[in-house]
């Protein structure tokens, strides 16, 4: 990794009072943020919260209207050239050249980062190997699966051994299996000591990858801190209950609804996976729910607790939902819809 020599304080990214307006819309409305060196900062928020705007400003693609931001000690406005040398960017939409083979994509970035031909070639091969793309190296990226494309995108952002890596919604639009694959890669990269700024809409992703979290809404930071701290503050969990007999799903949901337990949200039915989701706030509520299920005398095939969804986090922190239109959507589908 590039050492951050001019930045002895151990803070890789500093953002102070950052403002960006698009006409009447305040994409960023005074954002403050610190990312410590070698950590993963998760920026959690719904669509339109300003996450991508923040990443674009920190990558010198956008200029802020007010406020300050430095990355590895370089000012985003005054030292863009230096700054570009120490960052890696993986965008929301995989920004690889679809017409080029995987190898050529990486070689191109290597050359653009001033690596000598031989080194660019070696680096491309090394990263293809590392991201398990060696076999697909000669094929155009257009023929890659979604997961392969993200991996190639990650590899491309690692060519220059960046000190700070931006991951802008790295798993949005991916299926759960591919998402796990990308998470594993990101964890490995973090293990190498790179500082990461991760934007996401999923509490689960933040919990998997980030050590600290900043929750943003409508261009403002509404909460921040360690991930455990925030989870405690939000306090909610979801119980996912799956009856063995799918016909029991509706009656069970009705029963649980009658119980009157409202955690961070209301009880919902996820017909696709055949489960009832009950948000609970306390161990007592959890016990009451399990009691009600037992009283009904039905056989369960699974019973798990889950982290609250973004909606529930928002409801708890702000008193309003992140995306009102998605109220009726079961948690399981929410991830797909939130693209």
């Amino acid at each position, binding site marked *: 990794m*590039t*050492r*951050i*020599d*001019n*930045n*002895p304080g151990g803070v890789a990214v500093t953002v102070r009072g950052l403002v960006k307006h698009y006409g009447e819309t305040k994409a960023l409305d005074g954002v403050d943020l610190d990312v410590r060196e070698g950590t993963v900062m998760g920026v959690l928020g719904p669509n339109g919260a300003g996450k991508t705007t923040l990443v*674009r400003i920190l*990558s*010198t*693609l*956008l*200029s802020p209207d007010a406020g300050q931001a430095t990355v*590895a*000690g*370089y*000012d985003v406005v005054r*030292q863009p*050239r*230096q700054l*570009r*040398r*120490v*960052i890696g*960017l993986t*965008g929301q*939409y*995989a*920004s*690889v*050249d*679809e*017409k*080029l083979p995987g190898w*050529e994509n990486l070689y*191109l*970035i290597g*050359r*653009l*980062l*001033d690596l000598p031909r031989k080194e660019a070639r070696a680096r491309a091969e090394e990263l293809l190997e590392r991201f398990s793309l060696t076999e697909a190296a000669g094929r*155009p990226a257009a023929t890659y699966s979604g997961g392969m494309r993200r991996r190639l995108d990650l590899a*491309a952002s690692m060519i220059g051994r960046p*000190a700070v890596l931006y991951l802008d919604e790295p798993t949005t639009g991916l299926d759960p299996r591919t998402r796990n694959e990308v998470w594993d890669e990101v964890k490995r990269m973090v293990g190498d000591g790179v500082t990461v700024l991760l934007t996401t809409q999923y509490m689960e992703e933040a919990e998997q990858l980030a050590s600290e979290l900043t929750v943003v809404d409508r261009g403002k930071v509404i909460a921040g801190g360690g991930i455990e701290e925030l989870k405690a503050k939000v306090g909610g969990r979801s119980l996912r209950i799956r009856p063995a007999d799918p016909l029991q799903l509706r009656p069970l949901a009705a029963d649980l609804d009658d119980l009157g337990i409202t955690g961070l949200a209301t009880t919902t039915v996820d017909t696709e996976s055949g489960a009832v989701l009950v948000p609970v706030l306390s161990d007592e509520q959890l016990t009451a729910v399990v009691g009600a299920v037992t009283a009904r005398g039905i056989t369960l095939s699974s019973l798990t607790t889950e982290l609250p969804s973004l909606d529930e986090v928002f409801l708890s922190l702000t008193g309003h939902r992140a995306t009102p239109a998605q109220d009726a959507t079961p948690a399981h589908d929410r991830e797909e819809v939130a693209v």
Partner: protein
Amino acid sequence: MTAATVTPAGLKADARIPLRGHLRHTGALIRRNLLWIRQDPESMFDAVLFPVIFTLLFVYVFGGSIGQSLGGGQEAYVQYVIPGLMAMMGMNLAQGVGTGFNTDFNSGVMDRFRSLPIGRGSVLFAKISVELMRMLFATAVLLVIGVLVGFDITNWPGLFASVGLSAVFGSALMWVFLTLGVVMKNAQSVQAMGFLVLMPLQFGSSIFAPTTSMPGWLQNFTDYNPLSSLADAARGLMVGGPVAHDLWVTLGWSAAITVVMAPYAIHRFRTKGA
């Protein structure tokens, strides 16, 4: 802030990109654009088909009648129109630059390029270099077709000089279309806009027919149309006739367009969306 002057190892304090760096970046991006052509050979269709179709169309449809007014027949028109078509070729391919670039710009790869420490002009220089190669290829096709329909190459140095002149003027126009490609929202608008600008310029010139039979007001336009100068200069160089005036006018236009549009295109590219 004294800390900011200490920089990561091997990096100059001001981080300006040296000329060699610009060349390296442009070279790497040229390779990218050439690989595109290899990946998608159909993208060369226009470079092959334009010269073939236009040559056959103009020589066999209009050739006889326009040739008569030139004091000959179809053969006379071949000598007249081939240098004109050569001038036109740069134009039509230049228009394609804008469309292709616009599509490229909306693909997300540009964000990556723009977040890299590269000379911002290099993306545009690479695009223009590859389009010039395409243009030379199309010119070669045109000359082969031209010879097949009876074009007589009498002056090889003149031929090369006019190819060079078309390339100079063509690259100037490419800056205009690159700017459109950066500024406009989608590829269709770039194409429509290019068509609207090019059609009157091309037909209101001496490319396809001598302007002497046109009404006076139109002659005023064609006389000042840089495409007329380019076509007349190419004609003079290839088949003989006065050259100097049109040559200078064409070079003057090329220089003027490039000096204004190249920095503007690069500026718009740098600040796109910011």
